[in-house]
């Protein structure tokens, strides 16, 4: 073994003193050219040959077709694809809310067989509980775990500060704006201290300014908490802005078409021309799939 500095891989960067240290700026590169050695770690999340078949009107429909995907601990993976490609369903499978027809989901090498608080899904519709205050929403997962009230209060306080909602602890959900609700959902998911955060188009319904702000916050929170994030979106710029890696899905059946590594320094800016260039490249790949999905839609509707 030598003591000479190793080439810094994506995974290693998690453990640098500051995640936002100057990173070598380079353009988007295909994932195949990742530095050697990265694959040797046990991945945080591993999807092995995931296939999912539905029955619609008696006809079998292949929703997901042999998905193989590995996510390293602390990695930020974005999944983009046209609507109806099964990317949301994939998150439900990882969360354990649904079972694949075949294939396995492994967390730290162990197979998933139901929901667990090591993986928390933030739903597109959020699913916040309107009968609870913001603080009680955030503390819900802890309460289910049987954590005593005093300890719960401390943790809830910490995560509310993290998402900058401390002064709204006693508000009810309907009293908050869309962006604030997103932050409650994020705090509620983080409070159970999951290893993996699954986010299903969480910012799709927000206005552009709020979304930009939440991108910054999510990046900061990710850096502070070191969670693994799998983030599903149809917004390519968002994917390039946030992800270490972006996986493009095909339209029906959902397959992984291509993976991109986004090697841009953080914190990033959505206006950064380098991000735009990444997004453009990914979009080029995705466009074909979007066209397929639109064709299908027109055929069905006409």
């Amino acid at each position: 073994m030598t003591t000479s500095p190793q080439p810094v891989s994506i995974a290693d960067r998690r453990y640098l003193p500051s995640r936002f240290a100057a990173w070598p700026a380079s353009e988007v590169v295909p994932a195949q050219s990742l530095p050697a050695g990265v694959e040797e770690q046990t991945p945080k999340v591993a999807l092995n040959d995931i296939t999912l078949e539905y029955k619609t009107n008696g006809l079998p429909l292949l929703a997901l077709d042999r998905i193989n995907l590995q996510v390293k601990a602390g990695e930020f993976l974005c999944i983009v694809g046209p609507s109806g490609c099964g990317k949301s369903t994939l998150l439900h499978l990882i969360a354990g809310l649904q079972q694949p027809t075949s294939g396995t989901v492994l967390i730290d090498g162990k197979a998933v067989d139901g929901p667990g608080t090591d993986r928390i899904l933030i739903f597109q519709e959020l699913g916040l509980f309107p009968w609870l205050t913001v603080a009680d929403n955030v503390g819900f997962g802890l309460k289910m775990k049987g954590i005593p009230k005093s300890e719960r209060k401390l943790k809830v306080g910490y995560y509310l500060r993290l998402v900058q909602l401390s002064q709204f602890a006693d508000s009810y959900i309907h009293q908050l704006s869309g962006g604030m609700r997103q932050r409650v959902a994020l705090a509620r998911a983080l409070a159970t201290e999951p290893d993996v955060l699954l986010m299903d188009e969480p910012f799709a319904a927000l206005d552009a300014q709020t979304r930009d702000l939440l991108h910054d916050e999510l990046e900061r929170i990710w850096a502070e908490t070191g969670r693994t994030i799998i983030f599903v979106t149809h917004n390519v710029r968002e994917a390039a802005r946030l992800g270490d890696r972006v996986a493009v899905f095909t339209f029906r059946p959902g397959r992984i078409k291509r993976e991109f590594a986004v090697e841009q320094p953080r914190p990033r800016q959505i206006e950064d021309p380098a991000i735009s260039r990444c997004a453009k490249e990914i979009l080029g790949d995705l466009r074909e799939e979007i066209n397929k999905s639109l064709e299908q839609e027109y055929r069905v509707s006409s």
Partner: protein
Amino acid sequence: MKTVARQVTFYAIAIGAWLVVARLHLWPPYLFPPPQGVLESLWTGFADHSFWIAIAVSMKRIAIGYALSVVIGVALGVGMGSSKFLEQTLGGLLVSLQSLPSICWLPMAVLWFGLSEKAILFVVVMGSVLSVTIAMESGRKQLPKIYAMAGRNLGARGFKLFLFVLFPASLPYLLTGLKQGWAFAWRSLIAGEMIFVSLGLGQLLMMGRDLNDMSQVIAVMILIVTIGYIVDGLIFRTFERRLQYKWGLTSAT
């Protein structure tokens, strides 16, 4: 303020008319007592504690009976909401049973339980449980799936999932059923007590008839209406407002 003024005017005119008609002596006072006679009955009833005892007995019965109704009704409703078999079999039966006036259960209750508290409770429960059941079932069905999914995702399972997620989530749907169930329970109780002589407000009402004391009859009727109004107007209305505030629903007026 305008509403209050209107209400005051209305009641003043009604009582005034009552006074005038009573003064005309068209009917003997034991059939048509003047307002002051009713007032006097109310006064003596409370003074000799007979009204207090009757209220206490009736309130205890309604509290136990209604609590049982809610627990059984919610359990049945959840069962029917989650099982197609129960929904198609028991569901139809319960809807048809709803057309049965609750007092019809009294003969059965007396034969089974004799002249006991249990018989009265049985009538109260049978009178109100169906409203709660049907409301819970429809609430369970209308409930967005996202709450159960989010709850499971955050580690809620089995009874915890029901207690902390499904039940509070369905409360807005359940509320009408709870109110209706309360109204039915109250009516069933009074009807049961009237036929089945053992203390309570219903019995007091029948006693007024037996004594040919119309003042007492009217006084007890006023009492029954007032208690019903207080429970509905104060307890349920407060509960409803709290719910609307939490959920951000606009008040249904």
